[in-house]
């Protein structure tokens, strides 16, 4: 359309619109980084702050925006869109918002470009700052971390709102009239945030419904890649220099890997390359081709804080100390909170390597009780808001014990305080994998215990116990060999000595158990063993200790 603008005004207007578009993208993406944004006011004008607002420029985002614009400006029918979506650690993604910067034909010829348009654009940016904190995706993005990440994508052209599901809502941020058209900034956001993944760790059947539209192919597959929104800006405090982006690199990589390092799947990354363990917090691999981005430490807090804490839920919380690899012996403390109506005592067992006799029974004891429906009531979601509900169901679905015959399945398993820096396996995965070791054949039937006791009696008559290096019958040893399938080393019980009637004390007594000389008395089962489930063991011990008197 022909305007009365002189060339200087026209040039200024084009520049304003271009930088407004770039700043808009910066504000939107920064609002979805998951951190609080803070910039300083400056009374003396620096000349480089567009629209008199201190909005930092993340180089990667600017680059993406410029690439999408490709030298053009928003015009009628050509809108600049920023799509914000969520991607879970299992690979499912969902569009959350589309921010559109559009231009329509309604012109305001009277307005002064260099003054009024500029100030109004500045006001519109302030409104954008306010509105980006108000849409539902903001709270989701603040909680992003291990379970999901927020990605952004910039495209130019027609607005595509199909991916937002039914009933999406629109909020208009504002409009600015210019001599060449009216700039409109608006946001369409998804309302229905219920979300379910069919693929998760233990392959249990889905518990909630699935949004059908979620898996429909996009009618307009866009070529622009998705990028993660979690990025620590290269500020003066971190001292990270952002690597210069090369165009050829942009085309190749589909996305940037995200921290934390313990994530097994890097969202969107081709080939799903797992990250190396113990990545430095500042993304020091800035020189890498993949351009690893970083996480803020607050994400760890989110992860640790999410386990459900209902009083009726029995949780097995594991805390692992140190950064030992899974192959090292972990010192773990199993603490079980007993739910209501369960008349089992609270067990506190410390397992250290090698030293506690029958420790493998103890662990097994716990595991069997895990799948006991009385002990593990279903993990009912107790969050009230649908947003949080979706997040919890999302993350908790990966925690099933894989025991399909039970009605109740432990579906939420988040080891508290576990620092996910043991790779490639985190503590939760480790526990899940090894929580169901094969049962000892000798424990399966009563006769087994009887025969073992008889073996022992025979063995004791043959050799003086004090000479033996702590071995029991060969049969028992063989069946103990099954324990090697566990990652824990085989634990061999220490027998009583014949002479002094005192068992050799080479183990560390578990705290509070008071294992002392009087422990192995006739007829008294070891405290860590459950008489009700392991009647065989009790019987075995009774006979065992009697034989050595």
């Amino acid at each position, binding site marked *: 359309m022909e305007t009365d603008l002189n060339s200087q005004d026209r040039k200024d207007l084009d520049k304003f619109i271009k930088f407004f578009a770039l700043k808009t993208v910066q504000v939107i993406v920064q609002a979805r980084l998951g951190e609080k944004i803070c910039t300083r006011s*400056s009374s003396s004008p620096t000349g480089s702050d567009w629209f008199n607002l201190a909005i930092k420029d993340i180089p990667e985002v600017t680059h993406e925006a410029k690439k999408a614009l490709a030298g053009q400006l928003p015009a009628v029918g050509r809108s600049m869109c920023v799509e914000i979506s969520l991607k879970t650690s299992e690979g499912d993604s969902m569009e959350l918002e589309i921010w559109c910067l559009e231009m329509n034909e309604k012109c305001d010829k009277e307005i002064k470009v260099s003054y009024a348009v500029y100030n*109004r654009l500045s006001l519109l940016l302030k409104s954008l700052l*306010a509105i980006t904190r108000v849409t539902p995706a903001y709270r989701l993005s603040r909680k992003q971390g291990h379970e999901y990440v927020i990605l952004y994508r910039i495209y130019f052209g027609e607005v595509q709102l199909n991916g937002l599901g039914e009933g999406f809502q629109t909020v208009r941020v504002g409009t600015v009239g210019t001599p060449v058209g009216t700039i409109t900034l608006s946001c369409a956001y998804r309302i229905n945030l219920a979300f379910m993944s069919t693929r998760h760790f233990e392959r249990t059947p889905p518990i909630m419904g699935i949004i059908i539209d979620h898996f429909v192919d996009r009618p307009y597959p866009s070529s622009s890649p998705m990028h993660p929104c979690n990025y620590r800006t290269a500020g003066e405090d971190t001292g990270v220099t952002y690597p210069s982006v090369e165009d050829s690199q942009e085309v190749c990589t589909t996305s940037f890997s995200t921290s934390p390092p313990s994530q097994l799947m890097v969202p969107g990354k081709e080939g799903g390359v797992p990250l190396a363990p113990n990545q430095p917090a500042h993304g020091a691999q800035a020189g890498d081709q993949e351009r690893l981005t970083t996480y803020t430490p607050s994400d760890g807090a989110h992860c640790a804080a999410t386990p459900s804490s209902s009083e009726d839920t029995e949780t097995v919380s594991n805390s692992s100390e140190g950064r030992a690899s899974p192959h090292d012996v972990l010192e773990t403390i199993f603490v079980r909170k007993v739910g209501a109506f369960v008349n089992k005592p609270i067990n506190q067992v410390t397992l250290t390597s090698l030293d506690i006799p029958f420790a493998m029974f103890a662990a097994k004891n716990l595991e069997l009780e895990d799948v006991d429906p009385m002990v593990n009531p279903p993990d009912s979601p107790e969050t*009230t808001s649908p947003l949080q509900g979706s997040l919890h169901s999302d993350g908790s679905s990966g925690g099933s014990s894989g025991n399909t015959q039970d009605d109740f399945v432990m579906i939420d398993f988040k080891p508290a305080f576990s620092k996910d820096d043991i790779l490639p396996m985190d503590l939760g995965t480790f526990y899940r994998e090894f929580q169901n070791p094969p049962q000892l054949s000798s424990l399966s039937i009563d006769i087994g215990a009887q025969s073992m006791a008889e073996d022992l009696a025979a063995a004791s008559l043959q050799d003086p116990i004090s000479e033996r290096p702590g071995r029991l019958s060969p049969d028992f040893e063989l069946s103990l060999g099954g324990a090697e399938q566990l990652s824990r080393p085989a634990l061999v019980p220490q027998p009583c000595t014949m002479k002094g009637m005192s068992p050799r004390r080479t183990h560390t007594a578990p705290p509070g158990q008071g294992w002392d000389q009087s422990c192995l008395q006739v007829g008294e089962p070891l405290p860590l063993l459950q008489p009700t489930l392991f009647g065989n063991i009790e019987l075995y011990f009774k006979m065992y200790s009697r034989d050595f008197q």
Partner: protein
Amino acid sequence: MNCRSEVLEVSVEGRQVEEAMLAVLHTVLLHRSTGKFHYKKEGTYSIGTVGTQDVDCDFIDFTYVRVSSEELDRALRKVVGEFRDALRNSGGDGLGQMSLEFYQKKKSRWPFSDECIPWEVWTVKVHVVALATEQERQICREKVGEKLCEKITNIVEVMNRHEYLPKMPTQSEVDNVFDTGLRDVQPYLYKISFQITDALGSSVTTTMRRLIKDTLAL
């Protein structure tokens, strides 16, 4: 000219009053503040930069954006604190309101004092509710957060109507339009007042007092 008047209403729990009011007031002031003006020769001026920061609320599931100015924040917190205390001590229904008024000063000749002509007034009516159980409080946290989201959207909608704004002043006039007393930002001249409505509804005494004052001020 006509004064634009906008009214917002919120129902909050006692401990949420402060944060809810600050969220609304800061959002309005974010839109009504510019950088510091630096006048140059020939009547031109340059404008400083306004920084922003996110503020998380402790008692509401909500985050708002405010101007990065500690002085402004302190001034607002002071008056909101007074309002909260007055609400608490009133013992009435827990109804009150705060007014944020933007005005222009018009110099009058002696012996008349300067006129303050408001051009925009934001009124926030607050209704304090008392909740009994922790679960109700948790629900209230989320509900009030959602309500505040709506309020912010309303504020932004009004702001973007681009209705009357005072003209950019010359150097001599700048103090009639802007509050130049702050170090880092320059909001339009504003004043904040509040009022606790007692159980009878409108407060008669304050109205009478204002009538008399206005009459005397001529």
